[in-house]
């Protein structure tokens, strides 16, 4: 027989926050990750050790809007909603088309993908290269945390039990002169968890690199990004010389330490990650 569970689904965000302030709860947005994580055998409901709070119906968490050059994305926007939203930058839309499949995209949320903090989280490399910030709200107010600080390790995030991630903010979303790529390598195009993923971001003025960022997924406990290595490329002109590319690839070779698991091997992951970096650096803009 199914066990009794306490579940809340408030109409308003302030009621939700008050409840979270009173009680440590498991938050469910789209549920596409948590339902698998807590899965039981067929016919037996998933087991949760805490009361549950549903949040994906809250309209405050589904807004997309722009203030100055910052793009605010509601944490409970589904991938499909982002695909259909005029403010979402084209590179993010192209990336979303490679994530999961229509049925998951109709349900899975950006906030959920972040809070799941999987080393292979699909949106994460892109959010890292966009310098995304996470907006957390509690009864005590709001706070902003950089995504690279928010995600601390596999399934570990810097969220207090009374907080909800309400928005993801992409600062200075400039399309002009910005080139963004996202590559995901998996066993199947749809619905596969990445063996390796990569996002590259480059802003150029004429041939000069003004800003360059890259992040690797599924090759470490969190996304791998190195601002020191990125800095070495700022001011260089495109196309980069082979020797310059070799130097950058060699530096990443030292810091990427993937693991063997059921999805892939460390050797494969490292080779592909470095090839993706080389491919990005060799692109003729």
């Amino acid at each position: 027989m199914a066990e009794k569970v306490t579940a809340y689904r408030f109409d308003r965000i302030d009621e939700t926050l008050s409840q979270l302030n009173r009680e440590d709860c498991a938050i469910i947005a789209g549920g596409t990750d948590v339902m698998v994580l807590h899965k039981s055998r067929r016919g037996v409901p998933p087991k949760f050790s805490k009361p549950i709070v549903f949040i994906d119906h809250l309209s405050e968490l589904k807004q997309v809007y722009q203030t100055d050059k910052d793009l605010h994305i509601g944490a409970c926007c589904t991938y499909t909603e982002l695909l259909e939203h005029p403010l979402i930058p084209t590179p993010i839309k192209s990336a979303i088309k490679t994530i999961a499949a229509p049925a998951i995209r109709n349900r899975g949320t950006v906030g959920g993908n972040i809070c799941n903090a999987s080393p292979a989280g699909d949106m994460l490399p892109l959010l890292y290269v966009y310098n995304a910030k996470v907006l957390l709200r509690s009864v005590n107010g709001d706070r902003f945390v950089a995504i690279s600080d928010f995600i601390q390790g596999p399934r570990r995030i810097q969220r207090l039990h009374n907080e909800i991630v309400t928005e993801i903010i992409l600062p200075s979303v400039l399309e002009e002169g910005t080139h963004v790529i996202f590559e995901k390598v998996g066993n199947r195009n749809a619905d596969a968890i990445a063996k390796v993923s990569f996002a590259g971001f480059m802003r150029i003025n004429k041939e000069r690199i003004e800003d360059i960022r890259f992040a690797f997924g599924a090759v470490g406990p969190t996304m791998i990004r190195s601002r020191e290595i990125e800095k070495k490329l700022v001011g260089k002109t495109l196309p980069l010389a082979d020797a310059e590319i070799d130097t950058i690839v060699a530096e990443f070779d030292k810091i990427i330490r993937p693991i063997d698991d059921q999805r892939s091997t460390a050797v494969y992951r490292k080779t592909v990650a470095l090839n993706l970096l080389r491919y990005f650096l060799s692109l003729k803009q």
Partner: protein
Amino acid sequence: MITFTLNGRVVETDAPATVRLLDLIRDDFELIGTKEGCGEGECGACSVFVNNLVQNSCLIPIGSIAGANIQTIEGIIETEQFKILDESYSVAGGVQCGYCIPGMIMASAALLSKNPHPSETEIREGISGNLCRCTGYNMIVDAINLAAQKGDGIWQKK
């Protein structure tokens, strides 16, 4: 008590909020057209419509669907769209063991109602979340193509 619309009828349940929509519709409402394959959102056999969007019912806790409009394969069987798909799948040989087919039909209907004239790539993308271990997909792609041609003009209708 959770109230929602199931195949056009308002229903309620006192099952716990964590129960999967898949189990509720199969066990409590005895609508067994919706299948369980992987139980992890990777095979699409459990596809249903939630507010007209195709979703995996194995990943949906029923607590989150209060007030929603749920349609299963049984709920679309009387529609003109279903009849065209049914005929097209038969003509193209798109059905072998049949286990994936309710989910495939839901994915096909979702695709065509959004994009009535999909390219082959768009068809493959539309059913990318649905696994079939018999046909090798080509006949299913043909079936959807055929349904797009035969059903010209009917897909945008609700």
